[in-house]
């Protein structure tokens, strides 16, 4: 479930990044790379788990599924926080700089 949530997040952010190119001012590429990297790593995790428990991998207990979904959503939230922090520090549109300069003028 965590893998699924991350793959969906990766595909959606990549589609949004592609639509906004060549603008790139929202730094969506970073978010997209993060999700793809995590998806690939969880894919390996899933393969190892499948090799260990076999077909039972595809029939998880409802409680485990819910926990994995909760984890997947938390992972997406963490990635979004990292992206927002990078965006605000990088400040490609100069919004933060403009705000700070405005404050200094007063």
């Amino acid at each position, binding site marked *: 479930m965590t893998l699924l949530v991350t793959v969906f997040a990766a595909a959606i952010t990549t589609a949004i990044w592609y639509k906004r190119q060549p603008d790139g001012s929202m730094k969506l590429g*970073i978010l997209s790379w993060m999700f793809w*990297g995590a998806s690939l*790593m969880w894919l*390996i995790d899933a393969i190892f788990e499948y090799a260990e428990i076999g077909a039972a991998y595809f029939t998880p207990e409802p409680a485990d599924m819910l926990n994995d979904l909760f984890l997947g959503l938390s992972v997406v939230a963490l990635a979004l926080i990292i992206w927002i922090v990078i965006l605000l520090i990088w400040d490609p549109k100069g919004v933060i700089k403009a705000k700070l300069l405005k404050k200094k003028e007063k």
Partner: protein
Amino acid sequence: MACFLVPMTEAIVTTVAQKVIEKKEKKAGVQTVTSADGFTMEKTPFSKKLGWLNKMLWGGSVLLAFEHVWHGEVVPYFPFLTAASDPADAAEMLHEMGTAGVCMAAIVTVVWIGMLVVSKSLEKRALKALPATK
């Protein structure tokens, strides 16, 4: 248990490599390619392409580290990895790092190499198409 440490280590190495290559590229200046028809295009520097790998490795390993915190395998106090406090668990952890961890780092690197090949062929195709698009 601690499989994320392997791609994280690779991320540290590739980040240092990227910084070194970036410096060398800045010294060498902008690299361009010219088509048979005389059209010139700026090449995407290798350091930028290495940045793709960095972002995938860092992003993936940070999100995976969070999963380990979630499952109580990483803790904010010494020895930070719960498996490290027991020799039997530590051996299992090292085995997992050697198998799953190495595979994780390898798959991200293989995908990145595939992207390098694709981007190279796209650059060539774009260069060929330039006169037609003008």
